[in-house]
């Protein structure tokens, strides 16, 4: 089902890039409460992997999850409304940046607990496969997550039970401020090798390279089951979180940042398009995001009386806290 169209891949990275930039503006103006973990610089991974997926495949991401949700096909306007805590948001204003989910397009949710998505996606794909769907799943996580025991337990379950989950490690070099070299003994593909899971390392700044690697892995997974792992080497252009500017953390050498930013997935993919085609996509994306911001800001805030709506799927209501 791989989408080989370079224009569409460019549209995806450009959409994520501009979504993040507009979201950061809304953080600065106070419309997005609490800030975000920007995905700037890593767009090629979500875009490349999701280009290799079918609509009914499932994904789950991380605290840095906007790219995964958008690349899988969620509506940018509803996503922006979610960041602004509005009723029209994907999660009706109950989730925000770190929990954005859209089950209708197979997004089981951004997940704010590092390493949490691996086991959840494994269970979801296993269950759907048992019902006869030949879907696959993707669990996105950072380099920090490879030191979380539960993720490694999930590798074991997926490998043992032949569940086709693509584990995508977005190695941006840091877990908050902790460099990979100070945290990861052995290697990231080595983690997979321990469980007999095939692993590949790919240039995460090149959307087509990511797509091709994901596509090859997914074809194998769909045919014979069993997980695979991709370590996508990337660089986070901006701070860990938009709060970081306020506290001025000092952990990345300036020349490293300059070097990292020089390989921009948006430019790398953009250069593959004729100039007019690129300009056309840029204009189209701009339009989409202008409408998204307008939609978000014009949307109603949720009714405080409904603060605990959806707490129980069974219809149970919770006792109130007051008086």
């Amino acid at each position: 089902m791989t989408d080989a169209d370079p224009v569409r891949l460019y549209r995806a990275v450009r959409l994520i890039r501009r979504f993040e930039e507009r979201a950061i503006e809304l953080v600065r103006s106070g419309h997005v409460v609490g800030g975000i973990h920007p995905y700037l610089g890593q767009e090629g991974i979500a875009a490349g992997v999701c280009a290799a997926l079918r609509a009914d495949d499932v994904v789950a991401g991380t605290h840095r999850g906007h790219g995964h949700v958008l690349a899988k096909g969620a509506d940018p306007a509803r996503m922006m409304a979610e960041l602004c805590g509005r009723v029209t948001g994907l999660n009706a204003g109950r989730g925000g940046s770190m929990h954005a989910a859209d089950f209708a397009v197979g997004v089981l949710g951004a997940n704010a607990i590092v390493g949490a998505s691996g086991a959840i996606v494994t269970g979801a794909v296993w269950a759907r496969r048992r019902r006869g769907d030949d879907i696959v799943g993707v669990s996105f996580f950072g380099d920090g997550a490879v030191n979380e025991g539960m993720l490694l337990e999930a590798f074991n379950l997926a490998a043992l039970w032949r569940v086709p989950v693509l584990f995508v490690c977005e190695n941006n070099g840091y877990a908050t401020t902790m460099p990979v070299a100070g945290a990861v003994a052995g290697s990231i593909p080595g983690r997979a090798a321990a469980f007999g899971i095939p692993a590949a390392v790919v240039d995460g700044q090149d959307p087509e390279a990511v797509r091709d690697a994901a596509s090859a892995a997914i074809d194998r997974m769909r045919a014979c089951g069993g997980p695979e792992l991709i370590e996508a080497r990337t660089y986070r252009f901006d701070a860990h979180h938009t709060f970081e500017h306020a506290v001025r953390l000092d952990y990345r050498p300036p020349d490293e940042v300059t070097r990292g930013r020089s390989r921009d997935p948006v430019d790398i993919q953009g250069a593959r398009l004729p100039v007019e085609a690129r300009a056309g996509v840029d204009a189209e994306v701009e339009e989409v995001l202008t409408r998204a911001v307008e939609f978000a800001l014009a949307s109603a805030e949720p009714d405080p009386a409904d603060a605990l709506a959806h707490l129980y799927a069974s219809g149970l209501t919770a006792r109130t806290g007051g008086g």
Partner: protein
Amino acid sequence: MPRLSYRRALTRALADELARDESVFLLGEDIRVAASNVTAGLAKRFGPDRVRDTPLSEQAFTSFATGAALAGMRPVVEFQIPSLLFLVFEQIVNHAHKFPLMTGGQCAVPVTYLVPGSGSRAGWAGQHSDHPYSLFAHVGVTTVVPATPADAYGLLVSAVRCDDPVVVFAPAGALDVRADVDLAALAPVPLGRARVHRPGDDVTVVAVGHLVHDALAVAEELTDQVSVEVFDPRTLYPFDWDALAESLRRTGRLVVVDDANRSCGIAGEIIATMVERVRLVAPPRRVTRPDGAVLPFAPALDRAVQPSREQLRAAIGHVMKEG
């Protein structure tokens, strides 16, 4: 009438639900051969795919169940030891419980967590003897502690059918209880509905789980002196507050007996809620494990930490004397 043991009632409930609903499956350690004896015969009848042995990976298989539930299944996860719930508290509380609200109602997570042998079993000592139901009631996960075989059957069936996560604690002290049961009359017991085992006029004793049988024995001993009502909440969250208030409006006196630690336990919550709602004629009392208790190994020490019939008799004496 046939005698049915509490343990076999659990087996029967699982068998009936597996037979009734294809989306139900069991997951746990050594459940195929029924090491806990609760799943006896089920693998033979339903196959290893629906009675699924897991590696020792509690965190991953707990979240795997969450993922399977998100994909439309109704997993039942058996835990061999109550303290394993400490290991998977994060997976239950932070994921299974929170998903429906955080996604704005896009999903349900109907997982049952079954803990056969909760509380003290002779000789199992410090790391195998906890009874952590209050933790789940605190976070608002539906929490069930059946006392009798018929209730064990009926509450487990309701837990499996509930659209929310439910933890079912089967106290070790109740597993060998047998009762005359009309098998044809076994039926689901609604969650959140209490049961008065023995009506009385002077004092209401709220007893949790296996302590219902101790409370009934004490009430019987005291027949000539005090008329004791024995109230079994059956579900600790949601709690049947109306039924308890109704009982206390008649008796005016309250004693709670609960085999869990004193601070922040369910006994404290029961007393606080009733003091808010009902005018009692005497200060209420609770009989619990001590604060911060760790069950010591030697049998006499283990017993010294658990609530005893003597303590219950003394507490009843106090509330009778004080008002």
